[in-house]
């Protein structure tokens, strides 16, 4: 968004929404939406408590680990699926199944298989993030310009070279789009994991606050979460803009 030649950061539009929130809150329409100002005061009250900090640590740890696995596994798998018919035929049905499996209903199965600790929460987070990364990478690779592949082969590119230097880059705009959405979904995944598997971290805070109708506490933690999702998404959007110059001219 460019206004008067000045690039407004994405975040700035949140101010508009924040204002709207404050107004609704001040009107006192519902006790579920306290004014933003009150939420922020609460937020600063909550931030220094140990309960909050452990929760933040637990959540961030599970989140980062989950995203790490989703990216590190998802991108290569997606690229390989777009590239090789055999692999795609083998994996696509399962990708579709996991994609469509109501993860919340699968959680009992996951717990039987992986236990109740952070491990399962990380797996849940990964499961939330990975499919979009796989599918987007696959879609990116499948629309790749065939000439580029032939070119790299004719210059003797090894399989690895082709993957790293052609497929990855040619699909990069789609991959980044996938990672961005995947990461945002992972935020949700980590919370659902924390709520459904064992109640720890932010999930526990949400449960506690909502069960006791401590709405400004609830929103305060939610804001922290949104901020987390937002900064990561903005960072990835920044990367996406950096590849914009060729995305539309492939």
């Amino acid at each position, binding site marked *: 968004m460019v206004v008067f030649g000045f690039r407004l950061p994405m975040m700035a539009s949140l101010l508009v929404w924040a204002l709207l929130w404050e107004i609704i809150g001040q009107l006192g329409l519902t006790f579920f939406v306290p004014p933003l100002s009150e939420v922020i005061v609460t937020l600063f009250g909550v931030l220094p408590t140990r309960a909050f900090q452990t929760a933040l640590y637990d959540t961030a740890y599970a989140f980062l680990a989950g995203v790490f696995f989703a990216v590190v596994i998802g991108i290569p798998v997606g690229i390989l699926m777009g590239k090789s018919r055999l692999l795609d035929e083998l994996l696509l049905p399962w990708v579709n199944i996991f994609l469509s499996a109501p993860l919340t209903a699968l959680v009992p199965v996951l717990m039987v298989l992986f236990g109740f600790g952070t491990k399962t929460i990380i797996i849940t987070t990964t499961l939330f993030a990975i499919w979009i990364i796989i599918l987007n990478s696959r879609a990116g690779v499948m629309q790749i310009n065939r*000439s*580029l592949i*032939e070119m790299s*082969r004719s*210059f*003797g590119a090894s399989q690895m070279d082709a993957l790293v*230097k052609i497929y990855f880059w040619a699909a990069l705009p789609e991959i980044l789009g996938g990672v961005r959405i995947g990461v945002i979904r992972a935020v949700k995944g980590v919370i659902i994991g924390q709520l459904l598997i064992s109640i720890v971290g932010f999930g526990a805070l949400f449960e506690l606050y909502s069960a006791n109708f401590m709405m400004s506490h609830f929103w305060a933690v939610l804001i922290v979460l949104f901020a987390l999702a937002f900064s990561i998404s903005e960072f990835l959007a920044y990367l996406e803009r950096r590849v914009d110059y*060729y995305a539309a*001219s*492939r």
Partner: protein
Amino acid sequence: MVMPQTDAAFRTDAVPAEVAVSARNISKTYGEVEALKNLSLEFPRGQLTSLLGPSGCGKTTLLKIIAGLLEPTSGEIVVNGKPVKGPGPDRAFVFQDFALLPWANVLRNVAFGLELRGVAKSEREDIAEKYIKEVGLAGFEKSFPHELSGGMRQRVGLARALSVDADVLLMDEPFSAVDEQTRRKFQEDLLNLVKHENKTFIFVTHSIEEAVYVSDQIAILLPRPSRVSEIIRPTGLRDKDVDMLRRDPEYLDIVDQIWASLRSYVE
């Protein structure tokens, strides 16, 4: 101007020229479409062979089969005595649609062939710089393909193929988008490479004039399904003054001959 053609002509007449690439009974079908049918052709080392033929007759297909990028439906390609199983460092390709990396600037695109061969960065960039200058793109090293004109993109692809210094150069209409001026220069450069470095060129073009001027042999292909209908070996042309060539009766005779034979097959 020197006289590469006479050398070649001499070799051909006296000792048969050594064969660098030979295509043996190549057939290729795409689903329903029969592109090549039982095509055989030999490409002597150190000579420039042009493929002339109607659009869609299978020239690109043949080139890609020689490059090892496509599998022929039947038949085989032998390069330097060895059957071709896939792409190799002995062959470089200039693509009809340029095939540039849109995310890489001119410098990286030109150096890309060397990069894939594992040449160190500073070295390959030096080589690339040299060829960028050679094709007249100095000053555009940092530009991206979408910022170049059609002819400039084509020259990037050309520089990339030249920079890997392969024995056999497979060129698919390499000059189709450059102006006549530049084209003339490139033709001269090719002839120099043929003469001094004993490189083998396989060259697809639609310009009969160009083919006559640069080729040691011209293979005329039939329309789909393609076979070689005729091989013409123009001699004694390269030593003439280029600017006068256009009016040279010998040259014009060969052009007319090709024109007539192409026409007879097409109609």
